[in-house]
C-alpha cells in the first residue's frame, strides 16, 4: 500500500513539473532544419520534443513538421525563423495559451484545443501584426 502511494506521488510530481513537460514533437524534417534552444542548435529529427522558447529554423531547402500536445499542427517552410514564445496547456481541461512569432518564412497551421479554449487564446505575431486564431487552417508568410 505504501509502495502504491509513493508510486502515485512520483507520477504526480512528474506530471506537474512544467520544466520537463513536452509541448510538441517533431514529426518530420528535410534539408537544413534545426531547433534552437538557448545557445544549443539541435537537428530537427523526428521525435525531438519541444520546449516553450524554442526556435524553429530552416535553410533554403529546409522543412519541419510538428504536432503540439493540444493537437495544433505546424508545417514550417524553407528560409524560416519561428519562435514558440509561449505555450501553456492543461491537458485535463483542454485549455491554455499559445503565442508563436514568425520572424521570417512561412508557417501553415491547423489549430487545436487551445484556439478553441478561449477567444484569442492562440496568437501569432509577425513583424508588423498580431493575429488571434479563431480556427483552423491558415498560412502566415513573412518575406525577408
Amino acid at each position, binding site marked *: 500500500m505504501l509502495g502504491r502511494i509513493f508510486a*502515485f506521488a512520483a*507520477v504526480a510530481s512528474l*506530471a506537474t513539473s512544467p520544466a520537463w513537460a*513536452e509541448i510538441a*514533437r*517533431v*514529426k*518530420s524534417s528535410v534539408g537544413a532544419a534545426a531547433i534552437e534552444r538557448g545557445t544549443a542548435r539541435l537537428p530537427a529529427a*523526428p*521525435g*525531438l520534443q519541444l520546449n516553450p522558447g524554442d526556435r524553429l529554423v530552416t535553410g533554403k531547402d529546409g*522543412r519541419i*513538421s*510538428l*504536432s503540439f*500536445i493540444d*493537437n495544433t*499542427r*505546424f*508545417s514550417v*517552410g*524553407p528560409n524560416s525563423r519561428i519562435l514558440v514564445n509561449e505555450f501553456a496547456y492543461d*491537458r*485535463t*481541461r*483542454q485549455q491554455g495559451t499559445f503565442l508563436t512569432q*514568425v520572424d521570417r518564412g*512561412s508557417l*501553415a497551421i*491547423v*489549430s487545436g484545443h487551445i484556439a478553441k479554449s478561449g477567444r*484569442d487564446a492562440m*496568437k501569432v505575431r*509577425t*513583424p*508588423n*501584426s*498580431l*493575429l*488571434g*486564431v*479563431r*480556427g*483552423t*487552417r*491558415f*498560412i*502566415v*508568410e*513573412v*518575406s*525577408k
Partner: protein
Amino acid sequence: MSARLGAAAGLGLLLASCGGSSLMLLPDEAGGHGAVAVLEANGKPMEAVVSEPDSRTKLGSASASPRPMGKMNADEVALLSGMPPPARSYTLYFVEGTTELAPESRPVLDEIKEEIARRPGVDVEVTGHTDTVGKAEDNDVLSQQRAEEIVGVLATVGIDRSLMTAVGRGERDLRVPTMDNVENPLNRRVEILVR
C-alpha cells in the same frame, strides 16, 4: 488577362521585397472554415476579422482587405502537404474493476500498435474518462490514476513507455450524455490518441 497576371506577379514581387506579412485563410480539413482576427498592425491595436475562406490578406495596414486567393503557388502547396496527419483516436474498454481488456477491445489494441509504427516521431496520449457517479474532483483523480495504470499495461504489451502520457479528463467528455450521478459503463473508458 495576361496584363492582369503581370500586375499580380508584380504585386507579389513588391510584397516579397518589402518585408511584408500576409495571411491565407483556408478551408479546414472537415470542409468548414474558421477565422483569424487581426489584433494589431504596426504596434497599433485594431480588430478586423478575416473569415473569407480561400482568401489572401496583406497584413500591416489599419484595415484588413481579403482578396480571393487564386491559385496556390508550388511553395504553398508543398507547405500544406507537409502538414502532419491529424491524430487518430481509439477507445479501449476493460473488464469492470480490472486492467484486463474487454474482448471487443483486443483487436483495437493491434490497430493502435500498427498506427504507432506508421507514424514517425509519434506520441501517444492515454486519457481516462469516468461516468458521472461521485464528485467531479474525485473523478479527475480517479481518471488520472486509471490512465496511469493503463499506461503501465500498454507498456507491458509492447508500447514504448516514453511515447505515452497519462491524462485524466474526469467526467468532462461523456460518450453517452447523462445526468449527474448516473452509472454508465460506456462512459468509463480509456481513449488512446496516436499523434
